[in-house]
């Protein structure tokens, strides 16, 4: 770990110990950081804004959401952690795309990306972006 990164992490951790939990929870929600991470990483796509917010709400409502998780996400944001550096950031963005119509429209960057509902292979209309449902085999010409 780089020296500067270590100090920032140490500072945030210390802050968590000093801050009373109630005060910490009342701080601005982590969700806005997650939204900003998605928007930043996918800046070249047209993300439907309310869809990103709804996705982040659904994502964190469906997973463990406690003070340590909040801290971790704030850390990611302040340290400008990229998907390559953090599996959690990678998962957040990956599942946003899987939860949208991006792959159904064959990764067409010109279209607005709509959120369809939190990814679930039992509910998603086409749950596999690699699938023959989206890329059917070429049929021999008659």
């Amino acid at each position: 770990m780089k020296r500067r990164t270590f100090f920032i992490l140490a500072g945030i951790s210390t802050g968590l110990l000093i801050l009373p939990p109630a005060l910490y929870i009342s701080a601005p929600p982590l969700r806005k950081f997650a939204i900003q991470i998605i928007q930043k990483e996918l800046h070249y796509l047209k993300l439907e804004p309310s869809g990103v917010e709804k996705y982040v709400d659904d994502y964190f409502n469906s997973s463990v959401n406690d003070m340590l998780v909040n801290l971790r996400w704030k850390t990611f944001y302040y340290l400008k952690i990229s998907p390559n550096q953090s599996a959690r950031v990678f998962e957040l963005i990956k599942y946003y795309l899987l939860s949208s119509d991006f792959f159904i429209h064959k990764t067409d960057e010109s279209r607005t990306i709509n959120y369809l509902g939190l990814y679930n292979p039992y509910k998603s209309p086409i749950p596999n972006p690699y699938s023959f449902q989206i890329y059917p085999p070429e049929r021999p010409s008659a």
Partner: protein
Amino acid sequence: MKYNNYDLIVVGTGFASTFFLKKYLEKSNSPKKILVLDRGHLFPHAERLKLKKGEHSDFSQKEEPWEDAIINENKAKRWPFTLGFGGCSNCWWGCTPRFMPSDFKMNSLFGIEKDWPLDYDDLDPYYYEAEELMSISGPEDTPFPRKGKYPLPPHTFTAVDKILNQTYGNKYISQPSARASRATKGRNACFASSTCDICPVNAKFTVENSEIGVYENEQIELVFGAQVYSLETAGSQIKKVLYVKDGKDFEIAGEVIVLGANPIFNSNILLNAGDSNLFTGKGFGEQLGMQVLIYLDNMKNTGGSTWVNANGYMLYDGEHRKDYAACLIETNNAPYYIRLERGKWLNMASFRMLFEDLPLDENFIKPSANKLIPRVSFTKRSDYTMKGIANMKKKLPGILSCLPVEQLKYLEPFPNEGHIIGGTRMGQTAADSVVDKNMIHHQYRNLFVLGAGSFTTFSASNPTLTLAALSLYSADHSF
């Protein structure tokens, strides 16, 4: 119970029991009293689906978590299985390659462990029969000897599969699979969904959707919630089966007894019964699986029609098995490995590499203070397997040189493979094994011990088709 004494008592309703019963019923020429004891309950596929969708199911209390059913001494190693009607046919992935002929001759070909007491040719007709019963989808040209078409056509290749098949021929094939490529009896066509354990579209073969007419047979009395834990022995015979139902102990007499629970529980039942065979419970384990991510340059890996879309045999057979493990390549066609780089989203292939392991004495099952709950002690992977991984890392870049590979990323081995093997190995005599080639216990001659627990060696291939074929073979040669 309808009777005090049964012609046949079968423990479990998974693959091993079901295929044995199928053949037994075919061969029986007079009415039989058959009792089947299942520790769990029927938990229908439609109800399991409700839970997966976050809906309510009245059956949700019917599922017994595997973690509660055993004492797992090594928490880093997991042993997921499904209890209840159909056993692991509910949770399996539907991968059904045959074993290679060499898998049965590890000692004579490579000097490793023991040869099986039967060989590929012995099992060949039963492989066909099991493939027919499960309506397997697969290709015509396979690396193992097989003539003719599978019951259903093969699944569709991805772009990567096509190139590897062109390069390696029958060493790289569409995976033979119980995930139907076309709608067939009792099942829909696979949708290439991103999960298989409970198939979202009911395309995967299970005992419940099998339509092979076993448990509907009026000779069979099927009792749920009956957990068998031991046997009453008398010399070379088993006299009674001991079980717990609704918290009370019961016993029931039978002429022929069949243990078709999973390898962990088959071993526990035998050990609780005082089986003194030196190999009972020993040599337990499973294959080792690890994922390799293949980053592709300017190539989308799209178009596959099922999850495990193909099998590669380029690292499987050969003289190297004298020194290190065979590796079967499973190519995965699932959304969990995508790229987040602009324009490269689907420029990725992911291979699951399956390595055979050896039946080591250090890995074993033993009874605990609770007669119903076995203790699983798994402490070691063989050097043979670990050398296989090292060899794979050395060879894979060359094997994939026909593809535009940017980089390979090797992930850590998975904590489980879902292929529980060993504990009641098969061999020539009690000096080297627990059961004979018909899976009859060397000492107790009216006791069959079925399933992957009987495998002499592990192979690198998925075990279910072989254990189903063995059940057919066993019943056919014993009645």
